């Protein structure tokens, strides 16, 4: 990554033959270092030098692909430690654990829960993306569990959590085509495990008793030429797991040591020891600090709502706030007799507000002026969402002339704008709506009843 021109120069044949189009090998090397030209433009590089270079210029953290088809996704590939430096690219993925050690009822219940959590938040599908099948000692039951998960079509990637290579081998017969994660390799079994996954390049979860042991183990596995790895941060305590998670990421990105340049897995279910609320707290911490796969005991809305929302926040591009196009949007087949609601062009706000309007089933014209892509109060405080700009937008959008229903509803948080808008928009009735969008269905139905009564 951080190779200098001189580093590269040392690897060239130093012939100054100009075949690359540069006067000297050094000049060429300087250009390569800045990314201005590819090393292949020198026809005389030795294969050893090329290998060294490609190692040194490979990303510090590997991107590992998991799953097949529409359930496939990438893990890792991160380039920074803090999201204000650059975007975090591949979001954390949540897994739920099933096991042959569970009763059939437990398994059924969890499968039902996984199926139930499937919703859209700001344009993103929220669901459990990995189904972990943990081996509890009964091979027949384990294999039929995997079969059952298959039949249930859960649209998640498979993760075989099993350290017995013989059992993994049989399990793979069932799901190999799905590019499952095989967890896990340890210092006793890693050779057999690598043997099982190498040919198909399946992602392999690796576990060491300590960070140092993990490091040595990764080196050994790399020597066997398998590089689709996922590193377990450990589960003896929250403290240890957290520190390891940060260390792994930092050793890879800051110390530029690719031995730890892999995505991670955190068994939060084990760390929380059956305490569901603690599980939510700990999982939140690992969404923020570098957990690529976060394993949960089970899933329900109480867990999903905060965790998936937090993940969505952490993995957005900090340089580019999500915006929607300023415009007038017709919701629930609104026509010229529908009331006009005003909100801002911040994507989060738009999705929340339009979602609530849809839930109300009341036809509404949703007017969105250019508010700089900010939330209601932020835009107001920044001077981008004021009485005159809203009034101007209503006039320019044509709503002032062509619209029958002259009712304009403001977000409750900017109730202070009422007078100003009334002054600028003669003929309109300006109504202050509720503070929170979730009260919109009730509020809109009230408006509708009022209108019918007239």
């Amino acid at each position, binding site marked *: 990554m951080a190779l200098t021109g001189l580093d590269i120069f040392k690897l060239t044949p130093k012939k100054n033959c100009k075949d690359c189009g540069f006067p000297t090998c050094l000049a060429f090397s300087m250009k390569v270092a800045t990314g201005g030209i590819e090393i292949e433009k020198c026809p005389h590089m030795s294969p050893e030098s090329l290998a060294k270079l490609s190692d040194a210029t490979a990303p510090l953290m590997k991107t590992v692909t998991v799953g097949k088809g529409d359930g496939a996704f990438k893990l890792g590939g991160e380039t920074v430690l803090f999201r204000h430096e650059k975007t975090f690219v591949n979001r954390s993925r949540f897994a739920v654990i099933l096991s042959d050690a569970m009763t059939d009822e437990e398994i059924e219940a969890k499968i039902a829960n996984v199926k139930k959590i499937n919703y859209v938040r700001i344009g993103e599908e929220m669901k459990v993306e990995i189904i972990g099948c943990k081996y509890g000692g009964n091979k027949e039951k384990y294999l039929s569990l995997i079969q059952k998960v298959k039949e249930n079509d859960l649209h998640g990637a498979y993760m075989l959590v099993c350290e017995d290579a013989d059992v993994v081998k049989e399990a793979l017969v069932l799901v190999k085509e799905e590019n499952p994660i095989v967890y896990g390799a340890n210092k006793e079994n890693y050779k057999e495990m690598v043997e099982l996954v190498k040919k198909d390049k399946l992602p392999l979860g690796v576990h060491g008793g300590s960070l140092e042991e993990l490091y040595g183990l990764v080196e050994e596995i790399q020597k066997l030429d398998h590089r689709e790895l996922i590193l377990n941060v450990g589960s003896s305590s929250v403290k240890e797991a957290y520190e390891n998670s940060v260390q792994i990421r930092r050793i890879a990105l800051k110390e530029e040591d690719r031995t730890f340049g892999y995505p991670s897995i955190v068994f939060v279910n084990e760390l929380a020891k059956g305490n569901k609320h603690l599980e939510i*707290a700990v999982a939140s*911490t690992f969404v923020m600090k570098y957990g690529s796969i976060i394993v949960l005991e089970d899933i329900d809305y109480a867990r999903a709502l905060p965790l998936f*929302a937090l993940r969505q926040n952490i993995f957005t591009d900090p340089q580019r706030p999500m915006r929607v196009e300023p415009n007038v949007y017709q919701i629930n087949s609104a026509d010229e007799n529908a009331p006009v609601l005003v909100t801002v062009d911040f994507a989060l706000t738009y999705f929340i507000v339009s979602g609530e309007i849809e839930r109300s089933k009341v036809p509404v014209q949703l007017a969105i002026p250019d508010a700089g892509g900010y939330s209601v109060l932020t835009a107001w405080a920044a001077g981008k969402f004021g009485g005159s700009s809203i009034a101007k937008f209503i006039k320019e959008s044509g709503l002032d002339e062509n619209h029958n229903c002259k009712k304009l509803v403001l977000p409750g948080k900017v109730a202070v704008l009422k007078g100003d808008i009334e002054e600028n928009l003669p003929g309109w009735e300006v109504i202050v709506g509720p503070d929170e969008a979730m009260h919109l269905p009730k509020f809109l139905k009230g408006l509708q009843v009022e209108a019918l009564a007239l």
Partner: protein
Amino acid sequence: MAFKQSVQKFTGKINEVEIGTGEKAIKLGGENVMPFYSFDGSMGQRPKVGMEILDVYPEAWCDSLKGIYKDVANDSVAWAKFVEEKFHPDFICLKFEGSDPNGLNKSVDECATLAKQVAQSVALPLVIAGSNNHEKDGQLFEKVAQALEGSNVLLLAAVEENYKTVGAAGGLAYKHKVGAESSVDINLAKQLNILLTQLGVKAEDMVMNVGCAAVGYGFEYVTSTMDRIRLAAFGQNDKTLQMPIMAPVSFETWSVKESIASEEEMADWGCQEERGIAMEVSTAASMLTGGADAVILRHPKSVETVNTFIKEIVG
């Protein structure tokens, strides 16, 4: 390569700020590392967990919370004692919602009397919050600071519009601690801290609220702001940003849909109380992982959980 821990030493350190008096007094801050990075240096004081109570009946709170406090919620003194005895938080945040000019508009004298009664009835340190009306909050903090002289409370918080009044009364005349509240921006945080110190408030007597949001509701801006503030405080030894951070988590999480939608409204979503706790616990853990030195919470289960979380992660 051989395995080697990655260690980063910083020159800067967060100030240690004491709130309250006597045995129950607490200290915030003191760390010279990013949150819970014990491999780099000292984590300072264990993060603290406070509980929110109001000066008025919590009309807007959800039914499960009203149920928990039903016998005490009409009387802040009883409420404070109840919380102290039953849930053992590190501090109590008494929020004067009733002082809001657009609400009950209680007089600041009335508020100050109540503050004093509460302070006399509990041993826990107090954090005083207003109604977020900047002008009224200025007057409120001034009066409460006077009434609570000697109690060493934290006034949460002074903002750009009222920092002179709050700083002069709270930090200088009556020797309390002053919270500096800014809106999710490192430069604004810095600027307000500088203004307060120029007024004469000592940096060691200040705490910051640099903005707070529920997870999913602009939280990404908050966490990146905290990252930047902490990196400047440690890495550049920026004295104007070395105040501990207090995050009023409950002020944010209990008004979002996830916490307030009833079970009839969102049939799929399941138990409303569970969702409220989940949002509060997730936001609190995230704020602590982001760099907060203290959080304010509302539900007893959240307090219990976040305390366990802190114990587990600090080790």
